[in-house]
């Protein structure tokens, strides 16, 4: 068997939240590995910690225990700025609720992901527009998120994630709030990123995302990952 590049390697992750002095364990002992060119779908009911897991894998939060390597980088051992750099250059996150900047237009939201790079303003704008056009909302680029439909907002969020051509894509219900047609388009773009660029894709879903598109499917239950089915 040829050794593949591990884009993501998480070992024994634990995470709890505290409410009114009471510990609420969310992730008890989660380990997973995701290689380049691989798609992993994690299913689970609402409130089982899927989004929390994604936050931890994306370096947005810190686990109580365990180790997460993103592209060979131990996320616990690096600074917040290095984590930001990882998210900028290597990891793209699609959030369940889009997380668009409300006072920035569609194209500005996409451009925001390119602001730290070497592209000049004109190239940035051109690239952002190209991605928005690719996702079918080239005619709404100057609209604010509030002026877009839910489906259009989701497309902007996907464009913002893919515009940097990340090697690791973490998607939280990427087709959760969109119509089947839009969902299919989004899935097609994510699959293309995996197929064309060898990106690794991790999707968490409570059922809206077709699990058949995944190379592997796991289920998160009671804070533990287990094989689905």
């Amino acid at each position, binding site marked *: 068997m040829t050794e593949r*590049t591990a*884009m993501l390697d998480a070992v024994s992750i634990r995470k709890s939240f505290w409410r009114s002095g009471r510990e609420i364990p969310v992730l008890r002992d*989660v380990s997973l590995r995701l290689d380049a060119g691989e798609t992993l779908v994690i299913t689970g009911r609402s409130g089982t910690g899927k989004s929390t897991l994604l936050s931890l894998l994306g370096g947005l939060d810190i686990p109580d225990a365990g180790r997460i390597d993103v592209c060979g980088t131990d996320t616990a051992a690096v600074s*917040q700025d290095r984590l930001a750099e990882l*998210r900028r250059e*290597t990891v793209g996150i699609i959030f369940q609720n889009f997380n668009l*900047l409300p006072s920035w237009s569609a194209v500005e939201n996409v451009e925001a992901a390119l*602001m730290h790079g070497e592209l000049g303003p004109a190239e940035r704008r051109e690239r952002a527009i190209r991605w928005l056009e690719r996702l079918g909302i080239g005619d709404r680029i100057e609209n604010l998120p509030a002026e877009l439909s839910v489906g259009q907002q989701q497309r902007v969020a996907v464009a913002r994630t893919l515009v940097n051509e990340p090697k690791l894509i973490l998607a939280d219900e990427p087709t959760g709030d969109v119509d089947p047609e839009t969902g299919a388009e989004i899935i097609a773009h994510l699959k293309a990123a995996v197929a064309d660029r060898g990106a690794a894709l991790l999707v968490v879903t409570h059922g809206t995302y077709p699990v058949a598109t995944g190379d592997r499917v796991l289920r998160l239950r009671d804070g533990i990952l287990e094989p689905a089915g």
Partner: protein
Amino acid sequence: MGAGRRLPTVRCGILAEEGTVKHVAASAAWRDLAAAAGREARRRPWRFAACASGYAIAVGMGVLLLAALVFSRNIQSGILGSTGTHFIVYSPACAEVASLTTAELAMLASGTRPPRCEEKCKVCTGCNKKPLDLANEAFVAQQVETKLLPFGILEQARREPGLFRGVSPYLMFRCRDPQDGHRFTVGGFDPADTVAVPPAVCSPSDIIEGAFLHPNDTGLALVEQGYAAARGLRLGSAVTISGWPFIVIGVVAPGVRPAKADVLLTFSDAEKVISRRLRSPLFQEMNVLLVEVAQAEVQDAAMARMRQIVQTGLISSFACYEPAAEVLGLSRGVIYAAAVLLALLAAAFGLKTQLAAIRERRRELGILRAIGWSRRSIHRLMTLEALLPGAVGGVVGAAVAAVVLPFVSLEYWTGVPARLDPLMLPLLAMTGALLAVVGGIAAGAAAGRSAVRELPARQLRQY
């Protein structure tokens, strides 16, 4: 592969070579951040306006407060700045003068300095201009016999207007009346000098009878009221000095003046009559220098400088300049303190506003961090976002204050007939605007620090 199964990790060296991963701690360009800050201001105009107007009110009120303080200080300065700000300079005569021999005096008269005077008298011309009646007559100042001082000293002092507001030559000579042998002092001053002469000798307001001398008067004299009473002098009387009759045109009551004399003549008349009583005539010389200092606060510096100029000189001053200078210093301190307070106020206001904005925008900041913005970029963005309303509000507030201020009648409120220096207005306005900008930057920087302290996930959970 199932959950929890471990495979060897391979670092993404290949990816790095492809240029996808660049391990550079990049931050967004200032230009992009400024554009983002400007966009934020445009898209949320009411919040921006509220924030900027807060700065404008703070700066406007601050500028008005500073203007009132500066105005108050100007008034104090006008009164206290000239309190006791004068002194006289003279150089005591050598002790050896009395022991000079006739031969030595003859040498002096011919322009040669006797060997024993060589070391001590570098610039003094006093000895060769000794009075003919050595026993009774002399150049004096405050009961002390003095040397003569060259006019060159005047020029040196006039080159330093920051220290000396006015300097004037003065001759003060003790004479003996050949008729009855009584002694009296003759003072020679420049009547045109209205700065250094009045506080040290006398002024037109000291006239109790008659009129004051004019610069071109000749053959006319003022007499001190006590001397006039003692000698039975009145207006029109003649006072004869060196055989020259001077008509009394005024009686003065100068009170406590360091250089007051019994008989006052114009400088040129005094020069003539005194020269007749000397072995050699006076030429561009004086024995007392009258000095008016620029203001009470520089009195010490002015006296120190004068000691450098007249190295053998003594200075006689009034001590009342000291409390005046102290009060003026305190007043200036209050203005500085108010300015600092204003800056702190602007910064505190800005900080409060920015912190409120950050709380409101925690989620947005979390989004920016989630898509890879560095903490430095967020910090800078926050600083710029705070700077914008600070600058706009500061400029508007300062401009409004500058426009309003001339119409605020400080004279009406204070009852003091004084005006604020027109040049002070733009200076105050610029100071106010600058303080708002500084306050905005400080507030933004502090708020920015607070904004990047939280983990992005925690910020993203805010709704």
